[in-house]
C-alpha cells in the first residue's frame, strides 16, 4: 500500500484515498500499461512473420509511448507535470503513425505484388 511522503504526513495530510479500493491511480500505473504495450509490440515485431503483423506491432509500440506521454502530461495524476506538451506530442504521434502506416502498407502491398507473399521470411533475395 502506498504511503504519502513524510513531508506531507507532517503537514497533516494523512493517507487521502489511500485505503480506497482499488488504490488511486498514479503515473506508475500508466507506465506499466505503456510498458506492457511497448514490450508486446516489440516482441510482435520480432516474432511475426507477416509484414502486416509487424506493422501492428509497431502500432502497439507507438501506443505504449503515447500512453506514457498522456500520463506524464495529465494533471490528475501528479502536481508537477509535463503539461500540455504530453498531450500535444501524443497527438502528433498519432498523426505521424498514421502516415507511417500508410506508407508501410503501400510498401507491403508492393512487396506482395512482386513476391505474392508477405511473409517477411521469404524476403531473402537480400542476404540479411
Amino acid at each position: 500500500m502506498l504511503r504519502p511522503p513524510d513531508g506531507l504526513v507532517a503537514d497533516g495530510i494523512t493517507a487521502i484515498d489511500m485505503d480506497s479500493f482499488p488504490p488511486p491511480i498514479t503515473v506508475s500505473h500508466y507506465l506499466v500499461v505503456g510498458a506492457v504495450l511497448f514490450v508486446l509490440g516489440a516482441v510482435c515485431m520480432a516474432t511475426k512473420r507477416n509484414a502486416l503483423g509487424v506493422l501492428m506491432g509497431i502500432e502497439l509500440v507507438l501506443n505504449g509511448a503515447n500512453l506514457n506521454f498522456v500520463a506524464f502530461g495529465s494533471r490528475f495524476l501528479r502536481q508537477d507535470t509535463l503539461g500540455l506538451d504530453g498531450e500535444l506530442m501524443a497527438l502528433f504521434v498519432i498523426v505521424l503513425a498514421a502516415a507511417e502506416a500508410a506508407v508501410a502498407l503501400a510498401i507491403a502491398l508492393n512487396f506482395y505484388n512482386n513476391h505474392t507473399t508477405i511473409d517477411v521470411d521469404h524476403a531473402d533475395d537480400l542476404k540479411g
Partner: protein
Amino acid sequence: MNLHDLVSQLIIDSTGSASLITPDSSLRAFLPELVICATVLAMLFVRLFRVGRYVDMFWIALAGSIAALYFAAPWDHLGAVLTADQAAHPAAVTRMEIFTGMLVYDTFSVYVRSALFLFAILFVIFTRLSGIPDHEDSPDIYTLVLGATLGMCLMVTANHLLMVFMAVEMASVPSYVLAGILKGRRQASEAALKYSVYGAGAAGVMLYGISLVAGILNTAHIPTIALTLAEKFSGGLSAVPSGELMVLALGALLISVGLAFKLSAVPFHFWCPDVFEGATAEVNAFLSVASKAAALALLVRVALGMGVIAPTGFAPGERWAKTHQNAPATTPTSTDKTTDLFYIAQEPVTAAGAAAAADSTAEPAKLPAMQSLAPVRSFTAKLIAFFAIITCTFGNLAAYGQTNIKRLLAYSTIAHAGYMMMPVAAVVAMAGIDNAGAARGIAGLAIYIAVYLFMNLGAFAVVAFLRNAMRSEEIADYAGLVRRCPLTVVCFSLILFGLIGLPPLSGFIGKFAIFASLVDGWRAVEAAGQPGFYLLLLLIVGGINTAISLFYYLRVVKVMTIDDEPADRPPLVYSDVSLAGAYLWLITLPTAGLIVAWDWLSEMADAAARNLIG
C-alpha cells in the same frame, strides 16, 4: 498578459516586428525549407494540367534546390562575415531559437543545411544523367527526395524532442519509398519493406525513450532539459536518486537506438547492406550522404543539447525590436542593408552594451550548471565512443568479403559513420573543459561531412553509370575496366583512395580533422584530470581501421586496373567523354584537388562550430 499580447508575441516571433519579415525572424531563418515546400507544391500543381505532363520535373526540382541553397546563404553566414573580430562583436547574433523554441538557428544549422541543399542540387543532376527516375516517375520521386530533405533540415535544427521525433519520421518515411523506387523489382520492394519495418520499429523505440526523458524532466525543450538536468545533478551524482538515474539512462539508451539506426551504427546497422543492395545506386547516394549528415547533426544537437548549457541567444525579432527602440533615428535604409542575420553594422553601441551586460550577468550562473552536467557528458561521450568503435571496426571488417559493389559501399558507409561519430565523442568529452577545443572538434566533423559528400556521391555515381553501361554491380565485372574507360576508373580510384583517407586526396583532410579532434580531446581531458583513455583508444582504433579499410577499397581498384579484361565481356556502351563523365570529373575534382587550398572550408567549419557551446 492577455490573449492579444500572446498573439502579437507570436507574430513577432514568426515575422519579426513591424515590417513584413525582418532578417532575424523565424520565417526568414526558415526560408530555405519553405522554398523546398513550395517546390513540392509546384510539382504537384504542375501535374494538374495537361501541359504539365510534358514539363520535366527535373528543372523544377533543380530550381527549387538552387533557390533553397541561395536562401540558406552560407557565403553570408559562414564566409567573410564571421571573421574573428566580427564574431567577437557583442551584438552579433549567433544563436536564435525560432518558432517559439521548436527549432534552433545557428551557424551550424546553416552549414549542414547548406551541405544538404548542395547535395540535393548535385543529386538531382545525377539522377537526370543516370536516367532514374524516368519521366513518368520523376514528379513522385523528386517530391519524395525533397520531402526527405525537408525532414533532414528539421533534424539539423531540432530543438525540441517532438521535433526530433518528427524530423526523423519526416526524413525516414519518404526514404522508405525511395528504397523501393524500382517497384517492379523483387529486390527493391524487399529493401523497401525491410527498411520501413526496421525503421518504424527504431522510431517507436526512440519515441519511448523520448517519453521517459520528457516525463522525468517535465519538459521536452532541449535547452530546458539541460537546465533541469543541471539542477538535478547540482548536488553531485550521488545526490540523485538511483531510480531517476536509471530512468534517465534508460531513456538515453532508447533514444540512442533511434539515432544509431539513422546513423546505421552497429548493432543497428543490419538494414543498411540489404537496403543498399536492393535500392538503386542513386538512392544509396542519398541515404549514405544526406541521411547520414543529417543524422550526425541530430546526434550533435541531442548530445550537446542535453549535456551543455546552451549559449544565450536572441529570440526572433528581439534584436530587431531592440535596435529600433534604442535608435529611432536609424533610417529604414539601414534595415534594407541588414540582409545578413548575424551582424548588423548599424547596431547602436547602447544595445551592444546592454547585450553584453545581459551576458555577463548570465555568465556566472552558467559555469556551475555546466560543471554539474559533467556526469551527463561523460556518460554520453562514452556511449558514443562505444558505438563509434564497434561501428567502425565492424563496418571495415564486414566489407572485406563483399562481392557486390553496393554492399561493399554500404559497409563502407557504416564504417564512415563510425569515423564521423568519433569527433562527437571527443567534443562531448571536451565541452566544459576546453570549449574552444570542442568547437574545433565540431569543425572537424563539419569538414568530414563536406568531404564525404563529394566522395560518396562520386562513388555511387560511378556505380550508377557503370550499371547503365554494363547491367552489373558485381565487383568482378569491373575487371580491366581501365582499358575501356580510363578516366572513369581514375576518378573512381581517386574516390576510393579518398575514402581510405590517403593524402593528398580530400578524404585525408577529413580524417586529419577528426583525428586531430581526438588527440585534442585526449590532451584536454587528461589535463583536466579526468580519464580520457577512451579517446586515445578511439584514435588508435581509427588508425588501425584506416589500415584495414585499405584491403577492400584497394581490391576494387586492383580489379579495375591490374586485372585483365574478361574475354567474354558484354559490349560496354560508355564513354568517358560524355555528360556523365563530365559530371564525374566535377564530383572528383574536390576530392582530388581540395588539399591545395582547404583553408576556406576549414574557416567555414570553424564558423559553423562557433556557437554550439557557450
